[in-house]
């Protein structure tokens, strides 16, 4: 709580969305780095 933790369906959704966004961001960085 207070930005530290929570558990349930909401937590799973948040983790999945953040994970997907983080993963895409990481891939973009890797590709950009490879092109340079």
């Amino acid at each position, binding site marked *: *709580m*207070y*930005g*530290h*933790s*929570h*558990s*349930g*369906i*909401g*937590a799973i*959704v*948040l*983790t999945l*969305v*953040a*994970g997907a*966004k*983080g993963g895409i*961001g990481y891939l973009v960085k890797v590709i950009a780095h490879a092109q340079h």
Partner: protein
Amino acid sequence: MKISVLIPAHNEADVLRECLDAVLDQTLPVVEIVVVADSCTDGTTEIAREYGAVVIETEQGGKAASQDAGLPYVTGDILVCIDADTIIDADVVEKFVAELENGADATCANMLPMPRQTGFWVANRRYAYALGRFWWRWCQAQVGRLMVLSGCAYALRTETVRSIDGFPGKLITCDMDLTWSLYEAGYKTTFCHDALAYTYDPETFKVYTKQMRRWASGFFQNFQRHKLAVVKSPAAMLVVGSLLLDLLMMPVTYAFAITWMIRDPWTLKWLATSIAIHWVISFVIVTRTITWRQAIVGFPCYWVANWWNKGIYLWTFIREWILGRHYVSWTGRQGKATVIAPMSRPRKIALIGVAAAIALAGASWHARAAEIPLPETAILLLAITAAAAVALSFFCMPRYLTLSASLCTAGGGGLELNQVPAVAGSQLFWYLALIALAMGVVGAALAYLGEDAQIEHQRSAFAGSAAPLF
């Protein structure tokens, strides 16, 4: 680039030296330290001067107000805000500046309890903070909506905070208010998870509970204040909405689970499995920050404390949003008394109205289902209304009125429970029951609507200390 450090302090002589030592030990030089000594009666001021800090003595009675008092004296481009009971690693300021130069408008450190602190509540916090570092706060940062800049150590450009008219101080969790105010103004925050700050966490159940109650209240007050901005932002809805969803679903989920387990105790195996999965995942994450031993000790503490946290948040949701009773006191490490403002008159009227409506609906349903005569329905209606009013009255009614109304309700309810046929031959009992119940309802209602001396005293005491939220 000139870096200033702003430290609000209230009687922090015991811990201020180590905080200032850490600030002076930074890899990037800090050119200015501003210490705002708020109502200090110990040696805080003298210690700050020893270290060459600009000292402002004031009597603000709150963190944000103290920070605001110090803001005009800040001359740096980058403002690092640190709590006086916090020490930061030597590279924290350097990492903050790198984040700000990289496009962030504000950034913050990950916090941990002081390494020398021990005990159940500290072990729980150590685990929770370590978990947040690479899970919850990482997730929030990924979607671009950090729930709160860690109040103990964060940084932003001085012009940024000046552009939102200084540090917002109307709510009891001013760090969250600042964070959400920055979002409203269009600023971007980041989470600098490599920067570590160590702070004194509550070591006893009493102080821990006070802090959690304040944090929980602050969360709901902040949502109330910034609700339009939250609703408009998909990222905010994801971060805040997911927390609220989990919180509100919790009673339903656990009621369902407990019922299931009572019917078939073997289903406990699913609970054990879920705990094991949670433990394995979180263990892998937290051991990137804390030691194996701290993780092994911390998990059971974290797991148990989490139940307590959820209970506090759920109750706070009811108190802040349904009862409209707001937490208005500062109860930090120094353990000041908790103060909660009384319910407003419109809120009382609304709640009694809702209770009466529920009672009416319930009584109608009961009468129709049982095909009982009108007087019995009337008793039931009054009993439920009085019970609801009395139950609500526990939150702000003087004790003697609560007791009288409770007795009336109990008498009436008892007659109703005995299904009136036992006294059906005697009209007198029916009338007595009706009178008693009516007294209960009227007594409770009057106690709600009347502004008694105690409530008036509380209200005047808090005038100006917290802005009305509704």
